[in-house]
Structure formats: C-alpha cells, structure tokens
C-alpha cells in the first residue's frame, strides 16, 4: 500500500494506481476527457491536472498518468488547477464548438467566453478513437499523423483503410462526433444552454443546503441561472 | 596506427609516450627551437639540405620535442645557409656557413648536449623572429 495526502486527506493506494484512480476510489471528482476505462492512459487533454508538491516546487501533473507515490502531497482543486482546466476547455472549444461534451464542461467550469478564433475542426485530438481501434477492436486502422500544429487523426495515406471493418467504435467513443450541440447561435462558441440552472440540492430542499454559503462558488454542482 | 591488437592498460601508456612527442609541436612548445633561414639566398646556398639533414637527425634520435621552423633572409646572405638555435630560457644562437655535417654536429652537441658549437657561432642573443 502506498500512503499519501490528497486534499489534506491521508489516502492509501494500491501499487500501480494512478492519482486519478485513487481519487475516484475516494470519491473525489476530477474531470477527464481523453481518459477511458479499458483503454491505456494518454494524458493529452490535460483536464485532469492536479497540483503536486508544496511551495515553489509544486507543479501540475495529469492525474491519469501520474503514479501514486509514497508521501506525495496532492491537491485536486486549486486556483492554479482551475485556471489550467478552464483554459484547456476554452482551447478545445475553439477547435470543436459543436461538441456537447465540451459545451457541458464549459458550463460546469464557468467558461463563458472563447477568446480565440473558432476553427470548427470538430476534432480535439484526444486519441480515444485511435486507442479503441487498436486496443479493443484490434484493427489499428486509424492513428495520429504528422505533429505539432499539423497533427491529425487519419488512415494511412488518407485513403480508405484496408483493415477498417467499419465497426463504428471510433464514432461511439468520440466526444465530438457523437453528441452534437448546435448552441443558440451559430457564431457563439458557448451556448451554456444545457445547464442545470439551479443548485442540485434544490430538488430536495426548499432552501440551499450547500455548506458553502455562496452557492455555485465551487462550481461543481451549479451555475447561475441565465434568464 | 596501433593495429587491431587489443590494448592493455600498459599499451596505452606506450602509445601515449610514442605519439606525445610527435604531437608536442601542435602545442607550440618544446625544449628547443631551430630556425633554418630560408630566404631565396638561403635556399640557393643549400638551406633545403640543411633542413633535410636536421629532420633526419631528429627522427633518428627519437627526440621529438625539438621544433623546427623557417624564417626569411636574415640579411647576412654571404653566411648562408644559416640557422638559429634557441634552447628554452637561453639567448638564441646563430650559426652560419652550414653544411649537413655541421648541422648534425650542432644537433648533437648543442641541442641535445646543451653546449654551443663555438667554432661555428656567428652571434649570440640576436633578435628573434617574434
């Protein structure tokens, strides 16, 4: 057993667990996008970043790829972590504004504007499709090509793949293909239209029951109602 | 070339000994420096033969931290071929009217032995090249 601290709490992890797995085990929510159980970890979307270490030497690492280490100090929701997550969402939304998964994340994390030119590329290069194709479907028909700003997911020579069986697993797992969101206005990157507009505790109580007096500050369960 | 023989630790030292002296020249330092005067007059008077004899002698003696350089006409054309011998920390010595035999003698007696060959000396402590 590996013992370390997460959000001030002493936690124990099995040998080989990642920080994400440990957090899940203890019921601590960490957002993810390119992570999927049953597929190898990728660590590309950077949504699951958490802060490790203390003081000047603290840094952000992706919880899905970072192994649980003896004596580590982990904090899952700091200002620094949130600033990074928000920026990742903003960057990804600018690539694929039509993805409902991303729009929902934007709502959840209070990302209300996109300051970059929209690309409408509809792919955020999370690599889920390439991993499901290779690891679960045993086909390896698609993969990453090129690098840097030219990076894309494609078949060999951009032609129809000889090994693709048209199983559709890639589309099933894609955060952008599957659930589409048009938004109220085609030119607005963020619609914020699908929010649960009220604190979730209001389903059960008349009064706000959140122990954080200022509802919504933590951002994990509610957003201000828009209209 | 050390050949394709596998080296042992003592072989390394041998190679180092052997090549080090040959390479000393690249550091611009040696125990002695011989300047053969090779102006047109010097060459006409046989400075090339003097040079060859000297290099021959150096090679044979396997003493190789002796630096041989050339210089232009020293202005004493009637005394050519000439050479200047500088031993570390001693004033330079000029020799004139050289022959291959004379330079060999200078090599053995002055450069190796440290005794200047008085009967051949033209002058001591004259200007150096630099």
């Amino acid at each position: 057993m590996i013992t370390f601290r997460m959000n001030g709490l002493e936690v124990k992890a099995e040998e080989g667990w990642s920080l994400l797995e440990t957090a899940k085990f203890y019921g601590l929510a960490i957002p993810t996008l390119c992570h999927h159980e049953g597929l190898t970890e990728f660590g590309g979307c950077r949504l699951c970043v958490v802060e490790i270490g203390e003081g000047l030497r603290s840094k952000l690492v992706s919880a899905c790829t970072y192994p649980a280490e003896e004596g580590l100090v982990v904090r899952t929701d700091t200002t620094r972590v949130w600033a990074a997550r928000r920026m990742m969402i903003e960057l990804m939304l600018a690539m694929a504004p039509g993805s409902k998964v991303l729009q929902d994340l934007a709502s959840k994390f209070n990302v209300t504007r996109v300051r970059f030119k929209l690309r409408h590329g509809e792919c955020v290069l999370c690599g889920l499709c390439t991993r499901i194709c290779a690891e679960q479907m045993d086909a390896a028909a698609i993969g990453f090509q090129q690098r840097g700003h030219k990076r894309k997911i494609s078949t060999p020579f951009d032609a129809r793949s000889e090994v693709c069986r048209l199983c559709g697993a890639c589309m099933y797992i894609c955060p952008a293909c599957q659930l589409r969101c048009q938004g109220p206005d085609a030119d607005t990157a963020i619609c914020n239209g699908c929010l649960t507009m009220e604190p979730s505790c209001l389903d059960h109580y008349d009064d706000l029951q959140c122990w954080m007096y200022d509802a919504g500050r933590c951002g994990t369960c509610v957003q201000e109602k828009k209209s | 070339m050390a050949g394709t023989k596998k080296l042992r630790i003592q072989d390394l030292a041998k190679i180092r000994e052997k090549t080090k002296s040959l390479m000393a020249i690249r550091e611009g330092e040696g125990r002695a420096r011989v300047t053969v005067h090779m102006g047109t007059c010097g060459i006409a008077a046989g400075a090339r033969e003097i040079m060859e004899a000297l290099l021959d002698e150096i090679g044979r003696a396997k003493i190789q931290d002796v630096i041989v350089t050339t210089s232009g006409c020293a202005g004493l054309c009637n005394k050519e071929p000439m050479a200047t011998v500088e031993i570390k920390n001693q004033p330079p010595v000029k020799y004139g009217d050289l022959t291959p035999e004379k330079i060999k003698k200078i090599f053995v007696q002055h450069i190796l032995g440290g005794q200047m060959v008085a009967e051949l000396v033209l002058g001591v402590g004259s200007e150096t090249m630099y």
Partner: protein
Amino acid sequence: MDTDKTKVQSLIDKHQGLKKNLIAILLDIQESFNYLPPDALRQVAKSLGMPLIDVCGVATFYRAFSLTPRGKHICLVCLGTACHVRGGPKILEELERKLDVPAGETTKDGQFTLETVACLGCCAIGPVVVIDGEYHGHATIRKIGPILTKYQKPQAS
C-alpha cells in the same frame, strides 16, 4: 509507379527486420528513393509485423521523411535563430518567388524542392542556403538568382 521490392527488402534485411530499426530503415529508403513510396511503407509494415498506420505515423512525424516524390535538386533554407535575425526569411521569400512554390513543395517541372530547416549549425555564415548539399553562405536576395541558374543550366541543355 512500381517500387523496387527487392531493393526495399534488402534495406529491411540490412537492419535485421527489427521493429526498433524502423527509423533507420525508413531513412535508408528515403535515401534510395528520395521519398517514401506508399508501397515501400506497406512492405515495411508487413515485414516488421506492425500496423501500417504506425509506420505512417513515424513517417509523417519526422522531418527527414517525405511521402511525396521530391525534386531533382533539394533547396534547403536555414531558418535557425541566427539566420532569422540575419534576414533568412527574406531569402526564403525570394526563393519562393523565384521558384514559384511555397516552402515544403516541389516545383511543377520537378526540378526543385524548397524546404526549410531549423538549424544547420553553421550560424557563422548565415543566412545559409544549401542546394544538393552545397553550402551557400552569407546569402543575399541578389545572390539567389545566380545560385539557382547554376543548378538550372545543366538540365536545360
């Protein structure tokens, strides 16, 4: 276009047909054919027993490889930092104008491929243009024309 299969195979064999030598194999194929023909990549994937997409991934990731045939002359413009501050971009623009192709492409007549490189390590003579391995240092806009003609001439006759 048919690719010389025996040639490709001999290059694969030269590196014992091992997956870890994929990059070395591709470098050799690139050297022999001046680019990576699709058929050769298929053959490599098959011989090494790996998915074609992974071979393509490597082939498109590294700058040394080209998946399209390249010109007779490879014209490299150094855009390292030292060349950049000394005016490398202007030289590239001039070459793009003279050859009428954007960087990274081959002229229509197949004579020149214009490429950029991040640094050749000879910053002292920058800006540098290298054509077919021959270095042209201290390049200026005016020198570009004469340099190109030098390579164009033998082909014209």
